[in-house]
């Protein structure tokens, strides 16, 4: 085992145990356990002793075992039972301590779930025994002796709540996106679109570069950023090979693709997994954002940043050649299944952006391609197996962890460590944005969003309640900032692919990443403060 793996495992597990067993003032046991799981997940996600999706699965497993009302710790089975008997009048005799301060009795219902009963009549018999009457109270009732027991006070959620995160509407939205993308890849729609979209951009290197970037961004708005980058690389590599090896434009083209793919992912809710994490966090706070609303906010931002990135790339890597020949062979697949996939793609996107007209939510429409494409035989079981299921697990685990952070009050407690009110809306976006940007450059964007978002939303919700704070705009702003963290090859998979081609060096990527990133952070903050609040109130 590598040292890093070992250290990761050790620190993660030690963090989990320490958070559980070292008492922390102001934190209850559930919050402490949640903190432990959070630390373990954070360490595992950062140091990656196990794959990040495996960490997400581990999070859910730990939650159902340690945090659920059926788990090892908070199960009602762990509570001591009172000795009860029935007197001659039919009243149930219970120990006086077992009655809660609010006059409730707590029962272990069929040895599984907690049942709260408010007795209709309570008579103090004086010898430490109470005679109680009420619905459902009889000699077989399993009365819990200690109303202060953790299984009662913790207010633990059922394990099914954690499982439900895997089928949350946001996950389904992404599943829909996957189905569309799989069909598009299967019938070469992505390549065909690239061919068509690139045509108007002619042969001048600068324009070709812009064409490639717009193309990449458009595709990555609907497909995974990574798949888009890999696909575009198959288009770009032959072009690069035709460019003289001393021409800096090689690097320009090779960098344009991942930059555009990362930026393009921001454009739609299904563009990249951090969007899902943000949407899920907002949903938890009772806010639903439609596909079109997101696009109205994000698309202008995307276009501005894309054009800026194009300008930066051309400035840094000035093309020497005057013309660039692009040969893209192929034509649209015109088979029945291919046409079916185009139609479903168009209909789904159309329904997504017209939510305001028909009122069917984005996440419901997302199931249309999931249901129809396999039914038409456009996707077979091999294609369905080919979905990036681990991404869904990753997001699902994040949502589940966010659930506990909020429910156990850990998020509120963590937030309480800082005095946010003095910062104001700008300060909150800047702090979370900058922290998120820094983390996201080093680790997975989704994981960064997973760790930042529950805290941001807690602060935001508190500020929003106090007025003068636009929760949606701030969250979208922070999400966008996380998505443009692309300084290093490890920052995003598209960056890794571009690096792997061996055309660019880390310093080239860092240069572009920092300039575009900083500009993007600034633009996102400006939008979050001044522009987006105009769209969502």
């Amino acid at each position, binding site marked *: 085992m590598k040292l890093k793996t070992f250290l990761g495992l050790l620190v993660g597990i030690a963090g989990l145990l320490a958070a559980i067993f070292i008492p922390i003032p102001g934190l209850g046991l559930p919050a402490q356990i949640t903190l432990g799981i959070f630390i373990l997940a954070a360490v595992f996600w950062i140091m990656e002793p196990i794959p*990040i999706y495996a960490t997400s699965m581990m999070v859910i497993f730990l939650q159902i075992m340690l945090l659920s009302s059926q788990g090892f710790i908070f199960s009602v089975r762990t509570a001591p039972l009172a000795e009860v008997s029935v007197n001659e009048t039919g009243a149930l005799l219970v120990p006086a301590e077992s009655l809660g301060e609010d006059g409730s009795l707590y029962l272990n219902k069929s040895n599984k779930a907690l049942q709260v009963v408010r007795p209709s009549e309570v008579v103090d018999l004086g010898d430490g025994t109470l005679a109680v009457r009420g619905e459902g109270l009889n000699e077989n009732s399993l009365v819990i002796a200690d109303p202060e027991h953790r299984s009662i006070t913790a207010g633990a959620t059922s394990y099914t709540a954690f499982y439900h995160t895997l089928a949350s509407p946001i996950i389904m939205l992404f599943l829909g996106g996957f189905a569309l993308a*799989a069909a598009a*890849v299967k019938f070469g729609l992505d390549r065909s679109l690239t061919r068509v979209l690139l045509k108007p951009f002619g042969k001048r290197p600068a324009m070709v570069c812009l064409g490639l970037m717009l193309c990449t961004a458009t595709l990555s708005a609907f497909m*995974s*950023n*990574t*798949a*888009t980058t*890999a*696909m575009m*690389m*198959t288009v770009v*590599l*032959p072009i690069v090979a035709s460019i003289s090896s001393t021409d800096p434009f090689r690097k320009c083209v090779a960098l344009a693709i991942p930059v555009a793919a990362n930026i393009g*992912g921001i454009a739609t809710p299904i563009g*990249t*997994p951090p969007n899902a994490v943000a949407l899920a966090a907002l949903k938890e706070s009772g806010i639903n954002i439609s596909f079109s609303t997101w696009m109205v906010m994000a698309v202008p931002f995307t276009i501005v940043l894309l054009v800026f990135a194009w300008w930066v790339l051309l400035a840094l890597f000035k093309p020497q050649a005057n013309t660039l020949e692009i040969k893209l062979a192929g034509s649209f697949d015109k088979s029945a299944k291919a046409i079916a996939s185009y139609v479903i793609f168009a209909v789904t996107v159309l329904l997504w952006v017209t939510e305001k007209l028909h009122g069917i939510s984005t996440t419901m429409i997302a199931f249309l391609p999931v249901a129809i494409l396999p039914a038409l035989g456009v996707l077979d079981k091999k294609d369905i197996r*080919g*979905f*990036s299921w*681990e*991404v869904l697990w*990753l997001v699902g685990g994040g949502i589940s962890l966010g659930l506990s952070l909020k429910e156990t009050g850990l998020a509120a407690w963590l937030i309480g460590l800082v005095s946010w009110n003095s910062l104001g809306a700008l300060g909150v976006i800047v702090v979370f944005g900058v922290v998120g940007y820094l983390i996201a450059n080093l680790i*997975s*964007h*989704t*994981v960064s969003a997973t760790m930042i978002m529950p805290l941001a939303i807690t602060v935001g919700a508190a500020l929003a309640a106090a007025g003068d704070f636009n929760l949606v705009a701030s969250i979208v702003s922070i999400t966008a900032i996380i998505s443009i963290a692309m300084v290093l090859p490890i920052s*995003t*998979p598209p960056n*890794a*692919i571009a690096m*792997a*081609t*061996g055309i660019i060096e880390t310093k080239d990527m860092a240069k572009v990443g920092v300039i575009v990133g900083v500009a993007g952070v600034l633009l996102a903050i400006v939008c979050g403060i001044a522009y987006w609040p105009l769209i969502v109130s």
Partner: protein
Amino acid sequence: MNQIYILCVDDEADVLEAVERDLATMEEVFPLEIASSADEARQVLERIDAQGAELGLIFCDHVMPKETGGEFLSWLDGQPQWKRSRKALLTGQAGLEATVSAINNAGLDFYVSKPWTQEGLLQAAKRLLTDYVISRNIDPLPYMSILDATRLAEHSYKRGLISDT
């Protein structure tokens, strides 16, 4: 990421040294091993196997004492752990018959005739290793810079080998 080895087998020291020198540039990504006979190659393979590493490609001379390259590759093709390794015969001697037999029985993927050029050898190595990486569904990123990046990129997006994180 598993290490993927390249193994060169030739009984003649000067030829072996030349092949080794020509393939040295691949070693940044693919560790190189050499052997001067089929028996020694087996020992090397055992060691590779014990490390949990894989054999991506073998260049084997045909005319060798005791066991010909064709026979050795044929044996290799019968071993489950080496079945998918790409196999190339490197020789100036084998007639058509030996070549046909090697293709039929040894799962031969390529035939390099001596004298070879470094460019030809590297091209063959890159193509065969690209085939190997694709056939094994290995994460192609670490190999992209040295192998056929276009094919690897195409493979990875078609098969969804890498996803957003």
